């Protein structure tokens, strides 16, 4: 369902219509679902285009829709300080290959948040300069925010470090 109520979405549909799966503005949050290969381009456009100027990547997270295909969904929340408007961008990633382009080149704030998503969901970010776990330690097995990671799982005890 395409909802063109938001001029932002209208603009995006006009210029990058073929890169989008769908758009909606439910609950007042303008949302565009982007095809993953086009993500970097769309994001670059949103950041640099005069009139859109999304200069802040406020939030970046993922959702695990276990049982659906594509399973993972990347969710980005953009904010424009200059124009005071918001936009949500989503992209679905398949379970077999959860890889998406890193946005660290566009917004520095993506760095830690992408590391967090990598840590908790196991989604890899292509082009990230330093992709390693951030909240959990290296010895942790699995990605706890995946729905199939049991909540009661205990992390393996840390072995004493070999001298």
């Amino acid at each position, binding site marked *: 369902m395409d909802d063109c109520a938001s001029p932002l979405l209208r603009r995006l549909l006009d210029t990058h219509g073929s890169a989008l799966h769908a758009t909606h503005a*439910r*609950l007042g*949050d303008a*949302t565009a679902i982007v095809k993953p290969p086009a993500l970097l381009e769309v994001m670059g456009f949103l950041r640099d285009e005069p009139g859109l100027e999304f*200069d*802040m*990547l*406020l*939030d970046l*997270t993922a*959702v*695990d*829709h276990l049982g659906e295909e594509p399973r993972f969904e990347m*969710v980005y*929340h953009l904010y424009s*300080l200059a124009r*005071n408007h*918001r936009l*949500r961008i989503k992209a679905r990633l398949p379970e077999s290959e959860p890889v998406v382009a890193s946005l660290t080149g566009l*917004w*520095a*704030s993506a*760095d*830690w*948040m992408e590391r*967090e998503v990598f840590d*908790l969901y196991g989604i890899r970010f292509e082009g990230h300069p*330093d992709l*390693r*776990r*951030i*909240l*959990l*330690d*290296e010895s942790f097995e699995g990605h*706890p*925010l995946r*729905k199939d*990671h049991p*909540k009661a799982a205990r992390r393996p005890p840390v072995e004493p470090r070999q001298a």
Partner: protein
Amino acid sequence: MSTGPRLRLPGERKDGAQPDLHAEHQILNMGPSHPATHGTVKFLIELDGESIVDLDVQVGYVHRGFEKECESRSWYQCIPYTDRLNYNSAILCNLGFCMAVEKLLEIETPERCQWLRVLAGEISRLGDHLTRCGASCLELQAMTPFLYGIEARELVWDLQEMLCGARVTTNYVRIGGVKHDLPEGFAAAAGDLLAKVRSLLRDFDAVVTRNRIFVDRLKDTGVLSKEDCIRHAVTGPVLRAAGVPLDLRKDEPYLVYDQLDFDVPVGTVGDNYDRYLVCVEEMQQSLRIVEQCVDRLGALGPGPVDVDDPRVRWPAKGRVFEGMEELIQQFKSVTEGPKVPAGEGYLAIESANGELGFYLVSDGSQRPVKVRCRPPSFLNLQPLPLMVRGAMLADLIPTFDFLNMIGGECDR
């Protein structure tokens, strides 16, 4: 928390080249519970003499799986968990979460409830800033201002206790309402305590603001320019200190903030001194807001503080004891919990540290599919290496303090 590829052996250079004899860099581990890191965080610092060459911030020591836990709880049961995000301003976390759920449910809370929420939120913000300024002084070896700051915070928390029943883990805001209405005698107590807080703030100001040692340690240290703030999505007082007047209470007014009279303080340089001044000014503004709220609540007179929506609010207790219908409703509400319509929503409020957002996804059942908290501390901490690279080791302390990283919120 990971020790990754950035860890190098002492003396080993980034490019793997052999170091010169006198240029040997030192690796210093600071934290995770260094007394001067008032959050649990570890710094891996590469030092050249006393100046910082590079810094790796390792967070995650207080990771408790907030999001995972919420996914297995009913919406209602998540509220006490949000208390534990930012223990300095728990009400603001309660508020952010509940308002996000209300957004999904598309309900509007009654006017009195909105004023109460603003009142509680500002009390909480005041406590947060007082702790930040006080604790920072302590870590700069100024014990007395710390005591004044903490005394003022305790007074503010007295008000919080009157209102919510707890000083720290308030569990005050409910989906579609608040837990308690104003207790009797609150206005008088608030007038009293706020006067004391003001006088303590004056003393605090007299001791530190123009004190040479304090100014020398804060001025021009930890500078983060406007552009860097924006690139790193830094929000809150840190961003405002850099000169950007972004305050969601003004820019996207929620609750009744559009009816309140308050100013947005901004700095010019974006160093620690500006951050300190912005925080102090924000406390004055919060005091003003609290007073306006108390007046307004007095003028509004008694009224409902909850919406009458059986989906979210449990029936009034009095009726549960008497009526069969309400009893059944109570059983249903508690055992099933509110069912939130399928969908997603992001709602952000201005917390004491910046934009506190909640992104919720529901599939129409009793349990959330996803509860994402956009933690301001986490994002504000990220550019720390940028702020201290090239600075002295001692500058790391005030810089880190004025970022006010809260472990619970940063690591969730």
